[in-house]
């Protein structure tokens, strides 16, 4: 577990603005835009916390910043889009494990 503070108040408010405005505009937009909005939030949060993040997270965050803009562009190729999102899901799970106290013999 890490108790580092990685987000400044201004950065948190900026992320809130993105999430709130995304929630509203999603009501008028196609459903398949929703993952794109969440990816944009993920990319911005990764950028905001990268500098202050611990080694346990840094590679994962850097990977998000580099890959998400490209992943967004594959939206029209549903299989590739889902595969890219699955990759991110696996990576975030690995990042969670690095942050957890879970031990190998607890399985």
């Amino acid at each position: 577990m890490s108790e580092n503070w990685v987000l400044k108040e201004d950065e948190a408010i900026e992320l809130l603005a993105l999430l709130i405005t995304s929630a509203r505009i999603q009501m008028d937009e196609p459903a398949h835009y929703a993952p794109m909005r969440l990816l944009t939030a993920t990319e911005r949060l990764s950028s905001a916390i990268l500098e202050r993040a611990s080694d346990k997270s840094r590679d994962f965050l850097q990977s998000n910043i580099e890959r998400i803009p490209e992943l967004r562009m594959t939206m029209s190729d549903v299989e590739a889009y889902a595969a890219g999102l699955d990759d991110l899901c696996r990576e975030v799970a690995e990042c969670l494990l690095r942050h957890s106290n879970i031990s190998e013999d607890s399985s």
Partner: protein
Amino acid sequence: MNEAVLENIRTRRVLREMTEEPVAREQIETILEAARWAPSGGNLRPNRYIVIQDPETRRLIRLVSPGMFQKAPALILICTNGDVLIEHSLPPTDRALLIDIGTAAQTMMLAAHALGLGSGPVTSFSREAIKVILNLPASYSPEMFICIGHKAPTARPGMKPWKKITWRDLTHWERFPEG
């Protein structure tokens, strides 16, 4: 035949990655002048254009515009002026208003391309938040941003098409047959 115009239309692309290099005032004015000549339903001209170059204002706009991936050095916001609708007894749902926004937007993007600039439209933003940030008059309805700037060397290609199409796929000639 004016091949240069057709070539400009064929080669324009939406640009989502731009450099911080400012766009010259004269270039923005050329783009706005081009938009002035865009077709307008009934020649009523309900569009109003707001140019934003101030870095902090652009930053705030981007924070409430989830669809604005660009960090563009210049933004043009196309608004519909409700006073014009009242003056001509047009309902706000009149389809010509949307067409006016579209013709102005495409004309601006083609003009930007002709000037060697990149551009991209953005409609995914909170209208209410934009009204607050820009202190818009009550009669102005913000409809679409046109982001304008210089192409970043690292710019990626645009979104892949859902499927390959030609103009033939989009066109039917003459009357549809019965049955």
